[in-house]
């Protein structure tokens, strides 16, 4: 294997997690290229050359620390081979150039934060509030997603490695991924424009916004641009976006779009006046083509 550039090193550790981000990463489709650029020094689910003990007692510097799972300082919540999560983080965070909070749990606290909102947080945020495990840490990059998309992670690592510009938004998310909305590229967009809801789950036709509570128009992520597992996405498979990359995930009311006196919530960054006006106009027309099945069977 060609090896012109020295490989960058990665140490991967876990807080409170379901392992979903690791398993999502294992789906990465250009793994040979990944392996040509990076070396995983330690990963809890892989048999690596070094064990955790050896990593923690070494004085080596590493390039990237990837943290998966919610952060906590409570020892009883996480115990990794006799070390608390805090011991892992304190030990390793000083010896790396960048800290990547992989997944919504590591970024904002995620689903595990629901259990104890004080002691279970993200790295730099607790939900959408600043201040999580750290109050400040300049090395942190957040890549939320429940789970993370393998490309969001590896693309970010490659941009850092090549010393290209990595722009981050206010939640420290890479803009290349999180300037898009899940709504962008959804095959149901035309139904959204004309406010035609899907009649039921299990159909290609109709938008999932009103009845099914799709969060696509408010959720930052390029799911419908790069697709999942390279083939599909939630909305393409007929299930609504759950907003899993946002700091307020998990929301309590899923599968319904909040209607205020029968006015629905509005897409991100669009004024209520503009949105309701357009909605009213769109709804006043009937578009026959969109009321029909996409593929009509004529015998």
């Amino acid at each position: 294997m060609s090896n012109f550039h020295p490989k960058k090193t990665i140490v991967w550790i876990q807080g409170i997690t379901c392992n979903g981000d690791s398993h999502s990463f294992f789906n990465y489709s250009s793994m040979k290229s990944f392996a040509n650029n990076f070396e995983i020094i330690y990963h809890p689910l892989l048999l690596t050359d070094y064990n955790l003990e050896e990593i923690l007692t070494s004085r080596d510097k590493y390039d990237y620390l990837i943290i998966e799972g919610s952060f906590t300082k409570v020892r009883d919540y996480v115990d990794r081979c006799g070390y608390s999560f805090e011991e892992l983080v304190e030990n390793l965070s000083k010896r790396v150039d960048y800290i990547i909070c992989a997944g919504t749990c590591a970024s904002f606290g995620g689903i595990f934060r629901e259990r104890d909102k004080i002691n279970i947080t993200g790295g730099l945020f607790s939900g959408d509030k600043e201040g999580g495990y750290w109050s400040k840490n300049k090395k942190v990059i957040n890549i939320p997603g429940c789970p993370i998309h393998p490309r969001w992670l590896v693309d970010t690592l490659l941009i850092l490695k090549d010393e290209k510009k990595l722009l981050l938004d206010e939640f420290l998310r890479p803009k290349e991924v999180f300037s898009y909305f899940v709504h962008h590229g959804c095959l149901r967009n035309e139904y959204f424009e004309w406010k035609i809801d899907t009649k039921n789950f299990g159909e290609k036709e109709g938008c999932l916004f009103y009845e099914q509570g799709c969060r696509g128009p408010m959720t930052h992520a390029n799911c419908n641009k790069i697709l999942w597992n390279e083939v599909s996405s939630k909305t393409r498979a007929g299930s609504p976006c759950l907003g899993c990359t946002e700091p307020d995930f998990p929301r309590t009311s899923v599968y319904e779009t909040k209607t205020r006196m029968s006015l629905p919530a509005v897409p991100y960054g669009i004024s209520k006046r503009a949105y309701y006006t357009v909605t009213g106009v769109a709804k006043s027309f009937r578009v026959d083509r969109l009321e029909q099945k996409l593929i009509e069977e004529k015998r």
Partner: protein
Amino acid sequence: MITPRVCGICSHSHVNATILAIEDCYKNLGIDLKLTNKAKYIRELVLNAEKIQNHIKWFYFLILPELFKINKAKFAQTEAFKDKEWFEAQNALSSILKMGAIFSGQWPHGSYAMSGGVTCDPLESDILNAKNYLFEVKEFCEERLYGCSIDEFLELDNIFDLIDGNSTLDLAVTFMKESGFDKIGKSYDRFISFGDHKGVNEPVKALKTRLFKTDIKFVEESLKNSFFDSSEKGFTYSKSAVYKDKFYEVGPLARLMISKDPMIRDCHRRCTDSVITRIIARVKEIAMLLKRSENILENIDIGEKSLTAPKYMPKDISSQGVGVVEAARGTLIHKIWVEEGKIVKFDIIPPTVWNLGNGTPLNPAIAQKAIIGLSSIEEADFVFKSFDICSVCTTQ
């Protein structure tokens, strides 16, 4: 939405178990949701993709690296992030998940099933695409793992017949036999399975090779020997699942013993419930699941409805229900209690609490029993890995 996040490697098994539990709630009120074959097929297919992925990952990410530790020269072709065959295996597991994701939108953490069916509405071209991914994985398994066609492999009733040094499975089996792995990792030789799997769609337990009908109502989750905080006794987060106070092994070995699979029964006759039988059973299940998925893809009628919507919304019902799924590592049970549409109680019994329950020195649990008397930590570690004890599902 929450339940797939119980576990990142079995997320779709959890989705299925929850939806089955909710459908059972309807059934207990006398409401039959009448799923179409299409919906049932798609659910099974998505689940099969997850299981095949699990099995391949376990064999290539856990078992082979352990063998590599013991004999570097023999297993050098499978080193993680370095060798060709490991990359091929990684490609195979991501391809089979592509097959699944065509129907589930993504893996992990899709939410593709709803009461009454599934959310996707595939075209013929989606089915064809799925077949292509399946073909790729089949080819990998035939060329690397089995060294013969899936059909030939499934015909075999003696695994030791296959051995001609051609395939990775051969290599592993021969090496494990030479290393005496047919003598270690034995447990009670008691198996149980509650969900649907090949040829068996009712709860059955097996004491060695004899089968008995069982009833899920005798399953209990015991906290007897679990300690949730560090105390002097040492601590563990694991609960135990018992059937009439006894521990049973769940998983591929249990399923294949119960469905009287000739190859596994033969292997069991020679090596009983040792690690070698357990490992062969799990690798064999890959071939069975591939074959089954191929059949499903041939038979899906996309003209049927994906979802038959329940007439009553969940928010109007009070009921209780149980959902059972045969996940990669064994029986997974979700129990749910609903009052006026609100879930008031939810209980999950994942496979690992069957295999890794906590016993006592006099009455050890499945995996505990299997490691008693071993000569080294390494051996014990290997036996644990043969069960693929999953720490994530244990702690929920």
